[in-house]
């Protein structure tokens, strides 16, 4: 309603795409996958609330009735077949209602229905000032080298005004918005994990293995993540920054990068 009332104005919306202090919920979804994850969480939370309120009320009321003045004679119930059947079947139905949307999301995340337009390889490294080199193997410079670049974290004592502490990098992963991407994640040394919460992505980098995940970022923006598998001393200082731009800006960026690489 707020958005509709302001639609006559040209409005810039700022969303939560990075970790916030005292944050309670998820970051805002930037991909259909993350939106599905949030929706599944909401579906499961309905049952959590139902059970929490029901059980809490039964506990409180049991304590309430346990009063010598108001109820001097306790009931002597030792068993009740009907209630035992109900209290066995009803809780076993709840996981069924949880499993249906859960499996639907899980299998939809695995299925790749559209051929990805771009393939990006993220190679995890340790002990080199927290680098996460990226490789765009779809593009080659004039000397047949793929577009590659390192992505170093901005040191804590060296940020510019407006930059997030320990979350910024010098070279962001630039991707086009509303485009299907294929991410190949692999490490050069120890296990890492390439995670971007607002995109709903957490892909482990396992030595000797290349893991694949698909993303389709639905809006332009800058999305922050961090390494999510303990990889040594600088594990906490390995941020990931994905910048989604328009297709035109992406093409310009690729051209510039290839020129820089050739030179």
């Amino acid at each position, binding site marked *: 309603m707020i958005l509709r009332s302001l639609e006559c104005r040209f409005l810039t*919306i700022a969303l939560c795409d990075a970790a916030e202090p005292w944050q309670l919920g998820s970051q805002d979804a930037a991909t259909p996958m993350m939106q599905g994850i949030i929706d599944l969480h909401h579906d499961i939370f309905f*049952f959590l609330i139902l059970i929490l309120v029901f059980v809490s009320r039964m506990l409180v009321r049991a304590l309430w009735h346990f009063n010598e003045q108001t109820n001097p004679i306790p009931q002597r119930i030792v068993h009740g077949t009907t209630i035992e059947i109900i209290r066995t079947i009803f809780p076993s139905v709840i996981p069924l209602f949880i499993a249906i949307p859960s499996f639907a999301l899980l299998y939809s995340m695995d299925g790749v229905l559209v051929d990805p337009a771009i393939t990006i390889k993220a190679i995890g490294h340790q002990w080199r000032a927290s680098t996460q080199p990226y490789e765009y193997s779809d593009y080659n410079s004039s000397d047949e080298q793929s577009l590659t670049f390192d992505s170093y974290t901005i040191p804590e004592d060296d940020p510019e005004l407006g930059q997030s502490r320990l979350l910024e990098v010098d070279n962001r992963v630039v991707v086009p918005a509303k485009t299907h991407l294929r991410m190949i994640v692999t490490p050069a040394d120890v296990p890492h994990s390439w995670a971007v919460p607002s995109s709903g992505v957490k892909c482990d980098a396992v030595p000797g293995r290349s893991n694949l995940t698909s993303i389709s970022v639905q809006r332009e923006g800058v999305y922050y993540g961090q390494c999510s598998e303990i990889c040594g001393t600088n594990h906490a200082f390995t941020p990931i920054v994905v910048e989604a731009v328009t297709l035109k800006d992406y093409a310009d960026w690729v051209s510039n990068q290839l020129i820089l690489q050739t030179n």
Partner: protein
Amino acid sequence: MSTTAHKVATQAAARTAKTTGKRPPSVLREIVYGMSLGLFAGYLWKLHHWNNQRRTREFYSLLDQGKITVVADEPPSGAGD
């Protein structure tokens, strides 16, 4: 297993409850009240979820129409120097 004394005491308590107008505690009634309260609380959560979904749909709809943007304008060159 309830003894005769217990049965007599329980019937006496029921008669007292009838005369005083106070109903004795009932497991079935408590279960029904608890489930109703739980379902109502779950319904409130669902309202929050549907509201979130509607706002998300509105946001992307306005974004696609170009009425809002998530791209900040670049500051004019020389500003802040």
